[in-house]
């Protein structure tokens, strides 16, 4: 098709709209096998993606599924369905447009498989599930186009890897399938194009006009930001003033807990009763939908939110974005700011609000980087093998398969283009037999090879179990929170199981902006009552915790060299000066280590500026060495700049801990036993199908029947340390959590220039670290000492005395 059909052009004319150049270009390229569109928010991206579909459906009769649309958010799928319905009706296209997500009813889902709509809007998980059914070939026959929305977000996660495997499957079913990716502004469009394309086919990139530069500033406040803390409560009067001056404001937070606290505080100060809502991923779905609906109606002046609003749902007339807390990553900041002012070619407006003084420095660095158009990001390695294992099981659920054909199909997916046959065979062996060096499951193999060479499930009922455990999103174990039944039983949201375990009846915490009192646990539901009279404990939500990019870290270190800081507010400049005075400021070619007591523990703060993952690894390696030297470490926490280690004893000379040879030599064995590896193992083992999250019905009923994934890890480490899942865990850790290369680079850079400063209390720069989440416990001698102390105390308290 060379021309946009007249009835569609007429519709544009009737609306008084013209077609954007990038929309035209996407149309012109409609027959290409793969096309990636990079466009800012509000650039008519969705229409650019769907225009060829509407044109083809307008020109030709098409029965069955024509276009699949995949987005990372359920809400986005529903939103697009509504936004597409209008134009389709007005153009006069009698087409069916339906969404299919975890929220779609079972009846509707069944009908969709028998009689699919022309356009199906779905998520990566729902699509993977669809490909696992035996009737997938029938349902997908004749599909022409697949549109992957927000592909820049999917490309950063295993959800995207899974999606690309599902597309490879689809392409086998429909060889003429054409792929379109819609992306926000990114630093490396070619990487996303490689990710999307059917390997080795090419993928053209269409760049929309990026529009004018955003108007980003720091929010001016009367009060100074505190030395530490993440609440930004000091900024509330100024934020309220901004809300009043704008139509609709989005107030972004980096974590759900911070959003809760901020929302609580802003309501206490909201004397004018401005309608303000809260939205984050731990809130009950109904609550979220209510807020979304109110937002679309224009009933709200502001929404306190987290990354759950990062992606492109059209929230109406947002004219200001406020980012509370340092943005951590310039690319994400720029994408978030795009949420404001949806009119194309008008500058979007944003204010940055640092939560504490270190974040002032980060915010200024991020502002400078955004102005210089310096986007950041780390390249992602090849696709992870746990996702591959899951996909093999999904393929088996759909029916018998030929290993050669499956391997050929998988390697057409961008993330798995470099997969070797040996790696594939190892994954297949794992899925079939468990892949253990002790061949114990000959009788009970999950997959069997038939006489004709095809692989199939030994027990066809296993297909159902595989489908129930499909997906790559790792929920930390969460428990639902609801009001106690005789008081209404209303669901409020979710908290982490570990947080729930720390509660005793009478404790209070914040959820959905309310203070609630913990009443008890009933059938694995946290029951609470409303309580407004006590200061709350804070709910710990997992939420994504962004890592500050290395590019930003380097900017900050460059800033530290300055004799004074005219670009920083006076209070922050004074704070840095105080740090320089009381201790030192970190430098790029030296390593600063502070040692000080705080709150009954001894602390060691190592300012490596090596990025969160490397600082995390450093924490693991250092605590392990400390444990061996009898220095009784209790745990550590890492940020992009520093690792803070606490323990029972002071470390007077940490220099010997930093011998690179010793660090490197022990890396493997040291990593083996630590909590981060166990966490990584748990995630990979769940994705690869070794641990089932859902076993249908029996989950949570008999608690003593389920056991910790740590036991599996320990067992493999002891008896089968080279097992595929242990390899995957190591690879995952190396790519994500370990980053030993940067530790080496740091140690080589600093040489013997290690400065140890002993202080009598926490330094200005170290204070914020105490509020970091993601603390890693060290289970060693210190824990046994603590246990002994606490037992003693409990016995005394019970009047039983010590023996």
């Amino acid at each position, binding site marked *: 098709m060379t021309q946009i059909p007249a009835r569609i052009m007429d519709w544009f004319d009737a609306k008084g709209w013209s077609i954007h150049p990038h929309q035209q270009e996407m149309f012109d390229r409609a027959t290409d096998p793969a096309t990636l569109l990079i466009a800012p928010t509000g650039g008519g991206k969705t229409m650019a993606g769907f225009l060829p579909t509407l044109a083809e459906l307008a020109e030709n009769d098409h029965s069955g599924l024509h276009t699949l649309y995949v987005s990372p958010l359920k809400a986005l799928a529903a939103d697009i369905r509504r936004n597409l319905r209008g134009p389709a009706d007005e153009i006069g296209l009698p087409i069916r447009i339906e969404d299919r997500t975890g929220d779609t009813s079972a009846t509707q889902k069944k009908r969709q498989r028998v009689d699919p709509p022309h356009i199906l809007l779905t998520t990566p998980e729902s699509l993977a599930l669809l490909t696992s059914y035996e009737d997938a070939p029938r349902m997908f026959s004749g599909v022409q186009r697949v549109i992957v929305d927000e592909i820049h977000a999917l490309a950063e996660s295993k959800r995207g890897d899974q999606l690309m495997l599902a597309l490879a499957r689809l392409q086998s079913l429909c060889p003429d399938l054409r792929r379109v990716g819609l992306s926000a502004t990114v630093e490396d469009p070619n990487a996303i194009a490689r990710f999307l394309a059917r390997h080795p086919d090419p993928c053209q990139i269409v760049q929309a006009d990026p529009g004018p530069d955003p108007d980003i500033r720091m929010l001016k406040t009367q009060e100074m930001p505190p030395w530490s803390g993440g609440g930004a409560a000091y900024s509330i009067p100024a934020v309220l003033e901004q809300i009043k001056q704008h139509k609709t404001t989005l107030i972004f937070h980096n974590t759900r807990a911070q959003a809760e606290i901020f929302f609580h505080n802003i309501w206490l100060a909201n004397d004018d009763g401005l309608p303000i809502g809260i939205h984050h991923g731990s809130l009950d779905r109904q609550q979220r939908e209510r807020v979304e609906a109110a937002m679309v109606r224009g009933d709200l002046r502001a929404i306190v939110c987290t990354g759950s609003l990062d992606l492109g749902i059209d929230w109406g007339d947002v004219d200001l974005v406020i980012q509370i807390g340092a943005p951590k990553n310039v690319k994400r900041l720029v994408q978030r700011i795009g949420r404001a002012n949806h009119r194309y070619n008008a500058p979007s407006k944003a204010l940055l609000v640092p939560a504490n003084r270190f974040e002032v420095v980060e915010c200024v660095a991020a502002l400078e980087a955004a102005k210089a158009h310096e986007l950041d990001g780390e390249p992602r390695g090849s696709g992870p093998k746990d996702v591959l294992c899951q996909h093999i099981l999904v393929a088996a659920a759909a029916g018998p398969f030929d290993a050669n054909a499956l391997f050929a199909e998988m390697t057409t997916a961008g993330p798995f283009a470099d997969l070797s046959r040996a790696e594939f065979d190892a994954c297949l062996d794992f899925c079939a037999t468990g892949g253990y060096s002790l061949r114990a499951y000959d009788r009970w193999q999950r997959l069997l090879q038939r006489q004709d060479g095809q692989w199939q499930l030994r027990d066809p009922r296993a297909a159902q179990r595989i489908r129930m455990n499909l997906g790559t999103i790792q929920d930390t174990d969460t428990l639902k929170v609801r009001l106690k039944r005789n008081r209404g039983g209303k669901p409020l949201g979710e908290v982490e199981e570990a947080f729930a375990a720390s509660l005793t009846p009478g404790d209070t915490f914040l959820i959905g902006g309310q203070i609630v009192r913990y009443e008890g646990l009933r059938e694995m539901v946290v029951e609470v009552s409303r309580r407004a009279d006590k200061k709350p404990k804070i709910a710990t939500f997992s939420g994504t915790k962004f890592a500050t990019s290395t590019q930003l870290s380097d900017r900050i270190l460059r800033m530290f060299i300055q004799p004074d800081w005219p670009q920083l507010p006076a209070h922050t400049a004074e704070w840095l000066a105080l740090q320089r005075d009381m201790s030192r400021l970190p430098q790029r070619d030296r390593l600063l280590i502070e040692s000080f007591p705080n709150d009954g523990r001894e602390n060691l703060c190592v300012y490596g500026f090596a990025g969160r993952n490397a600082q995390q690894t450093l924490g693991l390696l250092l605590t392990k060495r400390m444990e061996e030297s009898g220095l009784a470490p209790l745990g550590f926490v890492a940020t992009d700049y520093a690792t803070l280690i606490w323990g029972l004893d002071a470390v007077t000379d940490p220099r010997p801990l930093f011998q690179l040879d010793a660090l490197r030599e022990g890396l493997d064995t040291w990593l083996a036993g630590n909590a981060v590896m166990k966490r990584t193992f748990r995630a990979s083992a769940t994705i690869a199908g070794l641990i089932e999250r859902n076993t249908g019905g029996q989950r949570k009923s008999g608690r003593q029947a389920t056991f910790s994934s740590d036991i599996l890890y320990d067992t493999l480490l002891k008896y089968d340390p080279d097992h595929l899942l242990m390899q995957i865990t190591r690879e995952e850790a190396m790519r994500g959590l370990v980053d030993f290369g940067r530790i080496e680079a740091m140690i080589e850079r600093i040489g013997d220039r290690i400065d140890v400063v002993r202080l009598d209390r926490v330094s200005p720069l170290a204070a914020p670290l105490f509020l970091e989440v993601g603390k890693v*416990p060290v289970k060693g001698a210190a824990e046994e000492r603590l246990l002994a102390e606490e037992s003693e105390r409990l016995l005394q308290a019970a009047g039983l005395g010590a023996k």
Partner: protein
Amino acid sequence: MNDLPFSFSGQDLRALGTGALWWPNRNLLCVSDLHLGKSERMARRGGPSLPPYDSQDTLTRLAADIDRTGAQTVICLGDSFDDLDALAALGTAEKLSLTTLQAGRQWIWIEGNHDPGPIGLGGSHLAEYTAAPLVFRHIAQPGGQSEVSGHYHPKTRLKARGRTITRPAFLLDHDRLILPAYGTYTGGLLSSENVLIDLMSDQAMAILTGSYPQIIPMPR
């Protein structure tokens, strides 16, 4: 690994850090809920193929405890096998380990709810066993006295200076002693669950396993 001496029904007993019970005066070692063959049973039922090393690991730990105590009598307090088919499917190496362990000592299998009477292995199979004044059975009975049992896989959780520590635990009151699960692939039931609160008296204590077992009032 250390052990913790305590008194129950007038007898001096020791809780081993591994979760085994040692009665020095009778040279008697008692372990509960070994769940041998668990991985095999899960695979057989169409579940994931878990690392098939659990039976070997459980028996290795048991061998170490027997070796250390020199026990003359060993009581396996029920649910020793994940089910009877798991017993049948036990590998030759594991069967040999068991036979070696049984040689030269009295071995008692108490029936559990998973394994009513293991057959084809040495040792005596009993519904319960009395070594006065103590009675050994799998599941605690209402009104039981001087009773040693298992079944519930008790664990307990406490907070110490902000750290939450969870460990398998012995539960102990005037009338009964409940052993933690000894098997490698076993989880636990918190002492704060209603069923355990109801079972144990208000004065109940918990002994946490680990390198240095500790006794505390039972968290509820």
